[in-house]
Protein backbone atom coordinates (compact mmCIF):
# COMPACT_ATOMS: atom_id res chain seq x y z
CA UNK A 1 0.00 0.00 0.00
CA UNK A 2 1.51 3.28 -1.05
CA UNK A 3 2.03 5.84 1.70
CA UNK A 4 0.60 9.33 1.62
CA UNK A 5 3.18 12.08 1.99
CA UNK A 6 2.84 15.57 3.38
CA UNK A 7 4.57 18.44 1.61
CA UNK A 8 5.06 21.90 3.04
CA UNK A 9 5.52 24.06 -0.04
CA UNK A 10 7.23 27.12 1.36
CA UNK A 11 8.15 30.45 -0.18
CA UNK A 12 11.84 29.94 0.54
CA UNK A 13 12.12 26.31 1.67
CA UNK A 14 10.03 23.19 1.28
CA UNK A 15 9.81 20.07 3.37
CA UNK A 16 8.37 16.56 3.01
CA UNK A 17 7.27 14.14 5.71
CA UNK A 18 5.47 10.83 6.23
CA UNK A 19 3.70 9.31 9.19
CA UNK A 20 5.42 6.21 10.52
CA UNK A 21 3.29 4.45 13.09
CA UNK A 22 1.95 7.42 14.94
CA UNK A 23 5.00 9.61 14.50
CA UNK A 24 5.66 12.05 11.73
CA UNK A 25 9.06 11.81 10.09
CA UNK A 26 10.71 14.52 8.03
CA UNK A 27 12.54 12.96 5.11
CA UNK A 28 16.07 14.04 4.25
CA UNK A 29 16.77 14.87 0.61
CA UNK A 30 19.63 13.45 -1.45
CA UNK A 31 21.92 16.21 -0.16
CA UNK A 32 21.13 15.29 3.43
CA UNK A 33 19.00 18.36 4.16
CA UNK A 34 15.65 18.23 5.92
CA UNK A 35 14.48 21.22 3.93
CA UNK A 36 14.96 21.95 0.24
CA UNK A 37 15.28 25.52 -1.05
CA UNK A 38 12.25 26.41 -3.20
CA UNK A 39 14.53 27.57 -5.99
CA UNK A 40 14.19 26.43 -9.60
CA UNK A 41 16.69 27.13 -12.36
CA UNK A 42 16.37 26.62 -16.09
CA UNK A 43 19.86 26.24 -17.52
CA UNK A 44 21.19 26.89 -21.04
CA UNK A 45 21.31 23.18 -21.77
CA UNK A 46 17.60 22.76 -21.02
CA UNK A 47 18.20 21.26 -17.64
CA UNK A 48 15.91 22.04 -14.72
CA UNK A 49 17.73 22.36 -11.40
CA UNK A 50 15.79 22.33 -8.16
CA UNK A 51 16.89 23.06 -4.61
CA UNK A 52 20.50 23.57 -3.54
CA UNK A 53 22.09 23.17 -7.00
CA UNK A 54 19.71 25.82 -8.35
CA UNK A 55 20.63 28.14 -5.49
CA UNK A 56 24.37 27.59 -6.00
CA UNK A 57 24.29 28.71 -9.62
CA UNK A 58 21.97 31.70 -9.02
CA UNK A 59 24.68 34.35 -9.57
CA UNK A 60 25.64 32.87 -12.91
CA UNK A 61 22.08 32.70 -14.20
CA UNK A 62 19.90 35.21 -12.31
CA UNK A 63 17.28 35.76 -15.04
CA UNK A 64 16.45 32.07 -15.18
CA UNK A 65 16.69 31.27 -11.48
CA UNK A 66 13.23 31.48 -9.99
CA UNK A 67 12.53 31.83 -6.29
CA UNK A 68 9.65 33.02 -4.08
CA UNK A 69 7.36 31.75 -6.83
CA UNK A 70 4.73 30.81 -4.29
CA UNK A 71 3.89 34.48 -3.82
CA UNK A 72 2.78 34.71 -7.45
CA UNK A 73 0.45 31.71 -7.40
CA UNK A 74 -3.15 32.76 -7.92
CA UNK A 75 -2.37 36.45 -8.34
CA UNK A 76 -3.04 38.69 -11.29
CA UNK A 77 -0.29 40.74 -12.89
CA UNK A 78 -1.86 43.95 -11.58
CA UNK A 79 -1.84 42.70 -7.98
CA UNK A 80 0.09 44.92 -5.57
CA UNK A 81 2.20 42.03 -4.27
CA UNK A 82 3.18 41.12 -7.82
CA UNK A 83 4.27 44.61 -8.82
CA UNK A 84 6.30 44.85 -5.61
CA UNK A 85 7.94 41.51 -6.40
CA UNK A 86 8.57 42.48 -10.02
CA UNK A 87 10.79 45.36 -8.84
CA UNK A 88 12.78 43.13 -6.52
CA UNK A 89 13.44 39.87 -8.38
CA UNK A 90 15.94 39.44 -11.23
CA UNK A 91 13.64 37.20 -13.27
CA UNK A 92 10.90 38.49 -15.54
CA UNK A 93 7.30 38.55 -14.33
CA UNK A 94 4.91 38.83 -17.28
CA UNK A 95 1.19 39.21 -17.86
CA UNK A 96 -0.54 36.09 -19.15
CA UNK A 97 -3.42 36.25 -21.64
CA UNK A 98 -5.93 35.86 -18.83
CA UNK A 99 -4.30 38.62 -16.78
CA UNK A 100 -2.49 36.30 -14.38
CA UNK A 101 1.09 36.86 -13.29
CA UNK A 102 3.40 34.43 -15.09
CA UNK A 103 7.17 34.24 -15.30
CA UNK A 104 9.58 33.99 -18.18
CA UNK A 105 12.66 31.79 -18.03
CA UNK A 106 14.80 30.40 -20.86
CA UNK A 107 12.44 32.15 -23.33
CA UNK A 108 9.54 30.09 -22.05
CA UNK A 109 6.41 31.52 -20.48
CA UNK A 110 5.59 29.61 -17.34
CA UNK A 111 2.66 29.67 -14.95
CA UNK A 112 3.76 29.88 -11.29
CA UNK A 113 2.02 26.58 -10.39
CA UNK A 114 3.99 24.90 -13.18
CA UNK A 115 7.24 26.18 -11.66
CA UNK A 116 6.20 25.25 -8.13
CA UNK A 117 5.41 21.77 -9.47
CA UNK A 118 9.14 21.28 -10.06
CA UNK A 119 9.69 21.65 -6.31
CA UNK A 120 6.82 19.27 -5.62
CA UNK A 121 8.34 16.77 -8.05
CA UNK A 122 11.65 16.92 -6.21
CA UNK A 123 9.91 16.47 -2.84
CA UNK A 124 8.00 13.49 -4.24
CA UNK A 125 11.24 11.97 -5.51
CA UNK A 126 12.85 12.49 -2.09
CA UNK A 127 9.96 10.63 -0.46
CA UNK A 128 10.02 7.85 -3.06
CA UNK A 129 13.74 7.29 -2.59
CA UNK A 130 13.17 6.98 1.13
CA UNK A 131 10.02 4.86 1.02
CA UNK A 132 11.16 2.62 -1.81
CA UNK A 133 7.89 2.79 -3.70
CA UNK A 134 5.95 5.13 -5.94
CA UNK A 135 4.00 7.85 -4.15
CA UNK A 136 0.56 8.56 -5.58
CA UNK A 137 -1.10 10.67 -2.90
CA UNK A 138 0.00 13.76 -1.02
CA UNK A 139 -1.25 16.47 1.27
CA UNK A 140 0.16 19.86 0.33
CA UNK A 141 0.01 23.03 2.39
CA UNK A 142 -2.22 25.67 0.86
CA UNK A 143 -0.12 28.61 -0.31
CA UNK A 144 -0.60 31.66 1.88
Amino acid at each position, binding site marked *: *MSKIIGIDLGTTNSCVAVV*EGKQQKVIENA*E*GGRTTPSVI*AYTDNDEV*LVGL*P*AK*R*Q*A*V*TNPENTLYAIKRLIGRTFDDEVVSKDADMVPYKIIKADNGDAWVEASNKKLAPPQVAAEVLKKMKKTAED*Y*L*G*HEVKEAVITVPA
Partner: protein
Amino acid sequence: MPKEKKVKKDNIQNDALNSKESVEDISEKENLGSPTYEELVDINEELEKSILRAKADLDNALKRTVNEVEKAHKYGVEKLLVELLPVIDNLEHALNKLSENATKEDKEGIELTLKSFESALDKFGMIPIYPVNEDFNPEKHEAVTMEQDKNKKDGSIGNVFQRGWELHSRIVRPARVTVIKN
Protein backbone atom coordinates in the same frame (compact mmCIF):
# COMPACT_ATOMS: atom_id res chain seq x y z
CA MET B 1 -21.46 -17.23 20.65
CA PRO B 2 -20.10 -20.82 20.59
CA LYS B 3 -16.60 -21.17 22.02
CA GLU B 4 -15.08 -22.46 18.81
CA LYS B 5 -16.34 -19.48 16.89
CA LYS B 6 -14.97 -17.08 19.48
CA VAL B 7 -11.50 -18.59 19.23
CA LYS B 8 -11.70 -18.29 15.47
CA LYS B 9 -12.66 -14.64 15.76
CA ASP B 10 -9.71 -13.97 18.07
CA ASN B 11 -7.38 -15.51 15.54
CA ILE B 12 -8.83 -13.42 12.80
CA GLN B 13 -8.34 -10.33 14.90
CA ASN B 14 -4.71 -11.23 15.52
CA ASP B 15 -4.07 -11.76 11.84
CA ALA B 16 -5.66 -8.52 10.90
CA LEU B 17 -3.69 -6.30 13.23
CA ASN B 18 -3.40 -3.54 10.69
CA SER B 19 -6.82 -3.79 9.27
CA LYS B 20 -9.23 -2.44 11.79
CA GLU B 21 -11.85 -1.96 9.14
CA SER B 22 -12.09 -5.56 8.12
CA VAL B 23 -12.34 -6.70 11.75
CA GLU B 24 -15.20 -4.28 12.25
CA ASP B 25 -16.86 -5.59 9.12
CA ILE B 26 -16.59 -9.11 10.45
CA SER B 27 -18.13 -8.19 13.79
CA GLU B 28 -20.96 -6.43 12.01
CA LYS B 29 -21.65 -9.44 9.88
CA GLU B 30 -21.53 -11.80 12.85
CA ASN B 31 -24.18 -9.79 14.64
CA LEU B 32 -26.50 -10.51 11.79
CA GLY B 33 -26.18 -14.27 12.31
CA SER B 34 -23.92 -16.92 10.79
CA PRO B 35 -22.10 -15.69 7.70
CA THR B 36 -22.80 -17.44 4.45
CA TYR B 37 -20.11 -19.29 2.53
CA GLU B 38 -19.71 -16.39 0.09
CA GLU B 39 -19.33 -13.93 2.93
CA LEU B 40 -16.66 -16.10 4.49
CA VAL B 41 -14.81 -16.24 1.18
CA ASP B 42 -14.95 -12.45 0.99
CA ILE B 43 -13.73 -12.05 4.56
CA ASN B 44 -10.93 -14.49 3.88
CA GLU B 45 -9.90 -12.58 0.77
CA GLU B 46 -9.87 -9.30 2.69
CA LEU B 47 -7.78 -10.79 5.44
CA GLU B 48 -5.33 -12.25 2.98
CA LYS B 49 -4.97 -8.84 1.38
CA SER B 50 -4.44 -7.13 4.73
CA ILE B 51 -1.80 -9.69 5.68
CA LEU B 52 0.00 -9.07 2.40
CA ARG B 53 -0.13 -5.33 3.00
CA ALA B 54 1.14 -5.72 6.54
CA LYS B 55 3.97 -7.94 5.28
CA ALA B 56 4.92 -5.43 2.58
CA ASP B 57 4.84 -2.62 5.14
CA LEU B 58 7.07 -4.59 7.45
CA ASP B 59 9.50 -5.44 4.64
CA ASN B 60 9.69 -1.78 3.65
CA ALA B 61 10.16 -0.69 7.26
CA LEU B 62 13.00 -3.20 7.65
CA LYS B 63 14.68 -2.01 4.46
CA ARG B 64 14.35 1.60 5.57
CA THR B 65 15.77 0.81 8.98
CA VAL B 66 18.80 -0.91 7.43
CA ASN B 67 19.28 2.13 5.16
CA GLU B 68 18.92 4.54 8.06
CA VAL B 69 21.49 2.69 10.16
CA GLU B 70 23.88 2.60 7.21
CA LYS B 71 23.39 6.33 6.68
CA ALA B 72 23.85 7.04 10.37
CA HIS B 73 27.19 5.22 10.26
CA LYS B 74 28.28 6.99 7.10
CA TYR B 75 27.17 10.49 7.94
CA GLY B 76 27.12 10.43 11.73
CA VAL B 77 30.38 12.36 11.84
CA GLU B 78 29.23 14.92 9.30
CA LYS B 79 28.30 17.65 11.77
CA LEU B 80 31.54 17.38 13.71
CA LEU B 81 33.65 17.35 10.57
CA VAL B 82 31.84 20.37 9.13
CA GLU B 83 32.49 22.27 12.35
CA LEU B 84 36.18 21.45 12.01
CA LEU B 85 36.47 22.73 8.45
CA PRO B 86 37.03 26.38 9.48
CA VAL B 87 40.18 25.23 11.29
CA ILE B 88 41.54 23.89 8.01
CA ASP B 89 40.49 27.10 6.25
CA ASN B 90 42.32 29.15 8.84
CA LEU B 91 45.47 27.08 8.53
CA GLU B 92 45.32 27.62 4.77
CA HIS B 93 44.86 31.36 5.25
CA ALA B 94 47.79 31.39 7.66
CA LEU B 95 50.01 29.73 5.05
CA ASN B 96 48.94 32.15 2.34
CA LYS B 97 49.45 35.22 4.48
CA LEU B 98 52.58 34.43 6.47
CA SER B 99 54.26 37.59 7.74
CA GLU B 100 57.79 38.45 6.66
CA ASN B 101 59.10 37.70 10.13
CA ALA B 102 57.91 34.12 9.98
CA THR B 103 60.69 31.56 9.89
CA LYS B 104 60.96 28.52 7.68
CA GLU B 105 60.12 26.41 10.74
CA ASP B 106 56.90 28.41 11.32
CA LYS B 107 55.79 27.64 7.79
CA GLU B 108 56.75 23.98 8.04
CA GLY B 109 54.91 23.67 11.34
CA ILE B 110 51.67 24.99 9.86
CA GLU B 111 52.08 22.86 6.76
CA LEU B 112 52.53 19.69 8.82
CA THR B 113 49.56 20.54 11.03
CA LEU B 114 47.44 21.10 7.94
CA LYS B 115 48.62 17.85 6.40
CA SER B 116 47.91 15.79 9.52
CA PHE B 117 44.49 17.41 9.78
CA GLU B 118 43.72 16.55 6.18
CA SER B 119 44.80 12.95 6.59
CA ALA B 120 42.58 12.67 9.68
CA LEU B 121 39.60 13.87 7.63
CA ASP B 122 40.56 11.49 4.86
CA LYS B 123 40.31 8.56 7.27
CA PHE B 124 36.62 9.40 7.79
CA GLY B 125 35.97 9.61 4.07
CA MET B 126 36.18 13.40 3.65
CA ILE B 127 37.53 14.28 0.22
CA PRO B 128 38.39 17.87 -0.75
CA ILE B 129 36.88 19.46 -3.87
CA TYR B 130 39.34 21.78 -5.57
CA PRO B 131 38.09 22.36 -9.09
CA VAL B 132 40.87 23.89 -11.19
CA ASN B 133 40.35 23.94 -14.98
CA GLU B 134 36.95 22.35 -14.57
CA ASP B 135 33.51 23.40 -15.76
CA PHE B 136 31.21 24.87 -13.15
CA ASN B 137 28.93 22.18 -11.73
CA PRO B 138 26.26 23.44 -9.31
CA GLU B 139 26.03 19.97 -7.75
CA LYS B 140 29.51 20.46 -6.30
CA HIS B 141 30.37 24.13 -6.66
CA GLU B 142 28.82 27.35 -5.49
CA ALA B 143 29.20 30.38 -7.73
CA VAL B 144 30.22 33.42 -5.71
CA THR B 145 30.65 35.85 -8.57
CA MET B 146 31.29 36.10 -12.32
CA GLU B 147 34.63 36.88 -13.87
CA GLN B 148 36.05 37.72 -17.30
CA ASP B 149 39.01 35.83 -18.67
CA LYS B 150 39.62 35.62 -22.41
CA ASN B 151 41.83 32.55 -21.94
CA LYS B 152 39.05 30.51 -20.41
CA LYS B 153 35.73 29.47 -21.87
CA ASP B 154 32.31 30.54 -20.58
CA GLY B 155 30.96 28.44 -17.76
CA SER B 156 34.36 27.26 -16.57
CA ILE B 157 35.81 28.00 -13.16
CA GLY B 158 38.06 31.02 -12.74
CA ASN B 159 39.22 31.10 -9.13
CA VAL B 160 38.60 28.86 -6.17
CA PHE B 161 37.91 30.99 -3.08
CA GLN B 162 37.34 28.10 -0.74
CA ARG B 163 37.75 24.38 -1.11
CA GLY B 164 34.68 22.20 -0.92
CA TRP B 165 34.33 18.89 0.88
CA GLU B 166 32.59 15.68 0.05
CA LEU B 167 31.71 12.93 2.53
CA HIS B 168 30.87 9.55 0.96
CA SER B 169 29.71 11.33 -2.20
CA ARG B 170 27.49 13.76 -0.30
CA ILE B 171 28.51 17.39 -0.64
CA VAL B 172 28.94 18.69 2.89
CA ARG B 173 30.32 21.99 1.62
CA PRO B 174 30.44 23.11 -1.99
CA ALA B 175 33.62 24.67 -3.34
CA ARG B 176 33.14 28.45 -3.55
CA VAL B 177 34.28 29.57 -6.97
CA THR B 178 34.11 32.32 -9.57
CA VAL B 179 32.61 31.47 -12.93
CA ILE B 180 33.87 32.77 -16.29
CA LYS B 181 31.52 34.84 -18.44
CA ASN B 182 33.15 36.76 -21.27
